[in-house]
């Protein structure tokens, strides 16, 4: 970790990436790391723990499910100290607003926090979100005092409606959940980032770190990654790579890209060339 001693330069670190005052705030959550780390589908508890150590996220996602009463039900969170993270429970599995609201209530009782990722699936095969159900659940839960992070498609107007409904963040998918197809509709993703005032978190479908970096360069507030890490050949190294990519992308966004020119502009001086001998 490098910390500059020059007081005029904001402190930066490899772990947090950008200036120390560059925390992402969503309701009660204050995140230094802009990589939100999923916890599903990991090959083992140990691998998940090592991934979290490598990627150093502040926020992790969780699902809520029935406990196996016969014992032996595997729980990959068993060995994890959840108190070290800001917990973002999801409503995954809900197909109606009512189910999502019920799961949000259960998650609140379990996490003792009002943070919820609203996820209402509208189609089994693509797991794409149900627009009406997502909007309805967001409205109700915001009204009840939840800090709602709404998982949505890349539809720009729906993203705007979720913002109007009081979502603390809007989370468009890059591609369907678990596909690792990468950013399928970059134009819409960029429009959503540009049009919304609330943080935009790119969720679902990312495959490789360069895609996460790209989202961050465009001005996404954060990215949420699960399958791309959990199902990588070496999940721990992939977790580290995503962590670094998010830091790099955020740093680049804050730095501001150079202007695009459609004519070549020499990088080396045009003056001072040695005289030609011919």
């Amino acid at each position, binding site marked *: 970790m490098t910390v500059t001693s020059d007081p005029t330069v904001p402190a930066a670190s490899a772990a947090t990436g950008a200036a120390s005052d560059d925390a992402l705030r969503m309701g009660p959550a204050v995140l230094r790391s802009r990589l939100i780390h*999923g916890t599903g589908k990991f090959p083992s508890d140990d691998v998940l723990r090592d991934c979290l150590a490598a990627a150093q996220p502040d926020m992790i996602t969780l699902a*809520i499910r029935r406990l196996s009463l016969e014992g032996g039900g595997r729980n990959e*969170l068993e060995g994890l100290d959840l108190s070290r993270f800001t917990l973002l429970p999801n409503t995954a599995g809900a197909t109606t607003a009512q189910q999502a609201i019920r799961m949000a209530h259960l998650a609140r*009782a379990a996490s003792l926090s009002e943070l919820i990722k609203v996820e209402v699936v509208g189609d089994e095969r693509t797991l794409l979100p149900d627009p009406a159900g997502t909007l309805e659940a967001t409205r109700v839960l915001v009204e009840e005092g939840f800090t709602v992070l709404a998982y949505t498609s890349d539809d720009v107007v729906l993203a705007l409606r979720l913002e109007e409904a009081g979502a603390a963040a809007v989370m468009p998918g890059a591609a369907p959940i678990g596909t690792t197809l990468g950013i399928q509709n970059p134009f819409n993703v960029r429009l959503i980032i540009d049009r919304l005032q609330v943080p935009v978190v790119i969720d679902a479908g990312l495959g490789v770190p360069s895609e996460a970096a790209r989202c961050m360069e465009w001005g996404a507030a954060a990215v949420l990654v699960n399958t791309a890490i959990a199902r990588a050949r070496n999940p721990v190294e992939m977790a580290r790579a995503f962590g670094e990519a998010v830091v790099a992308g955020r740093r680049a966004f804050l730095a501001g890209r150079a202007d695009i020119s459609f004519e070549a502009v020499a990088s080396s001086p045009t003056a001072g060339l040695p005289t030609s001998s011919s």
Partner: protein
Amino acid sequence: MSIAITVNGERRDVEEGITVAALLASLDIRASRVVVEHNMRILRAGDFGDARIEDGDELEVLQFVGGG
């Protein structure tokens, strides 16, 4: 005297007058890691000891698991 209840969708016979806390203990479940819904009402962990289970009651015992 035993009563029939439903826990996580499965029918179970338990002792009449049993509390949620006692039910969890009998199932070897650590109360600190679960959320309990009793007839669709969420119980606070502090209320497990007082919550008596009646014949026909439905309980859901849930926990956080890995997810995205």
